């Protein structure tokens, strides 16, 4: 997609993920490129499939959900054709993931030192004193207030923000080239969220790590991402740079999403809404899945629209831009 850019770290083509071998699909033909060191945001609401996208890549789909088609090129290798042992070698090493709920993502009966130790032993062959030293260094890296004490703590002795830092430390321990973060700050307070996001940005810059940031929060996207993909009902409906998305949203869903956010700067007042609700899995309308809710829907929406370019590096899966459209001022 970006011709002069460096070789993408991850190239995802035609990902179909569904329930069982014959059940309804959750993801339809998802294509994605991730450049090394890039922060790509995936934004969508419930039912968009964004978490399933992350889990598909990591090989962590819950039974009976499974990848049904597509390739995920990680360098020379297609992740979906790897054996479980090979994927395990990647997971936690080159590809790491952090989750939404720090309360339940850490093992409550293992101390932090043991959990970090697991990663260090498995992915970097460190044990004993060197492992402990590296663990302390990692905790300092994630700005824990008192690394020696917290290293020996159990998860329940730490606050939500600290647990999330531990998770990040565990992810970093394997020296990942890609960090997948699934709603990493949704469960945290605003002030803690700010700290964690700043930490992630700093680490990402220093390590040159790529980040796939999954969230429903457009504010987080604005804060963190270089490029953004918008998902609706299992498909990517728009993607481009963060500026493109906020200044020139092209797909009607993106426009609706941006318009319906309550914003501090906007003061009090009626909110723009998107009528209707997200279709349930397996109950998509024929053609464009958003058409029933779309103010710009027309007869040409009876076919599922393909992603079409609407600017340099900016794509939208909508036929409306090809039609004459109403004047769009600078986005409110």
């Amino acid at each position, binding site marked *: 997609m970006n011709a002069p850019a460096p070789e993408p770290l991850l190239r995802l083509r035609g990902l179909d993920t569904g329930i069982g071998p014959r059940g*309804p699909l959750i993801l339809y033909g998802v294509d994605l490129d991730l450049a090394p060191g890039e922060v790509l945001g995936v934004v969508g609401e*419930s039912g968009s499939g964004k978490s399933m996208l992350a889990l598909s890549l990591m090989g962590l789909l819950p039974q009976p959900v499974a990848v049904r088609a597509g390739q995920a090129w990680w360098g020379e290798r297609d992740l979906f054709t790897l054996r479980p042992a090979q994927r395990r070698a990647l997971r936690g090493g080159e590809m790491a993931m952090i989750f939404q709920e720090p309360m339940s993502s850490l093992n409550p009966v293992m101390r932090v030192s043991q959990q970090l130790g697991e990663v260090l032993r498995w992915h970097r062959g460190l044990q004993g004193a060197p492992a402990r030293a590296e663990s302390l260094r990692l905790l300092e890296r994630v700005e824990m207030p008192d690394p020696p004490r917290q290293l020996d703590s159990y998860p329940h002795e730490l606050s*939500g923000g600290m647990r999330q830092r531990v998770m990040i430390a565990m992810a970093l321990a394997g020296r990942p080239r890609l960090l997948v973060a699934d*709603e990493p700050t*949704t469960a945290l307070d605003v002030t803690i969220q700010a700290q964690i996001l700043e930490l992630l940005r700093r680490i990402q810059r220093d390590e040159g790590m790529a980040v796939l940031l999954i969230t429903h929060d457009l504010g987080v996207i604005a804060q963190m991402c270089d490029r953004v993909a918008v998902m609706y009902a299992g498909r990517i409906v728009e993607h481009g740079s963060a500026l493109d998305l906020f200044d020139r949203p092209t797909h009607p869903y993106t426009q609706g999403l941006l318009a319906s956010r309550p914003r501090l700067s906007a003061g009090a007042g009626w909110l723009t809404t998107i009528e209707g609700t997200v279709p*349930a899995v397996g*109950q998509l309308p024929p053609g464009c899945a958003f058409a029933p809710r779309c103010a710009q829907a027309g007869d040409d929406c009876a076919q599922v629209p393909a992603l079409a370019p609407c600017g340099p590096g900016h794509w939208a899966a909508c036929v409306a831009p090809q039609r004459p459209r109403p004047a769009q001022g600078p986005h409110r």
Partner: protein
Amino acid sequence: MAAVMQAPLLAPPGRSDTLGRRLLRNRSFMIGAVLIGLITLGALLAGVIAPYDPLKGNFRARMVAPSAAYWFGTDHFGRDILSRILHGARISLQIGIAVALVTGLLGVVIGAASGYFRRLDGPIMRLMDAFMAFPGIILAIAISSVLGASVTNVIIALSIAATPHTARIVRASVIVVREMEYVEAARAIGASHTRILLRHILANSMAPLVVRMTYVFAVAILNEAVLSYIGVGPPPPTPTFGAIIANGRDFIVAAPWITVAPGLTVLVSVLGLNLLGDGLRDVLDPRMRVNAR
């Protein structure tokens, strides 16, 4: 902090996903249902299909091995084992159901009171603990020998033995449900304790209780057999499973079928009920329903 709730992953249940249909699809439940169903059918139709009178002996046909004339053979009085088993099933199943129902009722009352009213919880549970300190069967034997031998007393004894654990299960459910927001919503409306208990808490705590009741049923059949075997069950010549086995005790080598046949019947009944219970539990467990949250 609020995490964004995930909308149900799958479509809401359609017609094909009602409780009944899910039960029919569960293998464990179906096998169990068939097994216990057959035995129940036999028990219900005992009067009609039993080939011989279970109480009348035929001295010329004593200790006959299983054969065309006597499918399960005869005992030392010449009584047809099959007929005795069919009639015995009636009594054993009656005892089983009665115990399950009584235990269920007592368990619900005690468990709900304990789980909902925090001040009652301590004393009630200590009392239950005291009862649970006795192995169930010993307790049943003790109560039974004090009360005397009869079907009713067996039911009472077995119920008392099974109630504490049932109460505990109900209490656990109640404790979980009482913290749910819809219970708080009911309080916000001004609903009385009674209404909250019945309409909100118990209505949503039934699943573990129902599963437990199938096990209580099974264990009651087993325990009744034990009580009869050692002589504190319903008096002879009542042909309960345990009584038939007890009768054959002295002839195990000479005429093993007298003990084996009823023993197998008990096994099949208990197995059937356990499978039924497992199937019910799998189907009722909210986590197994992919379309729940």
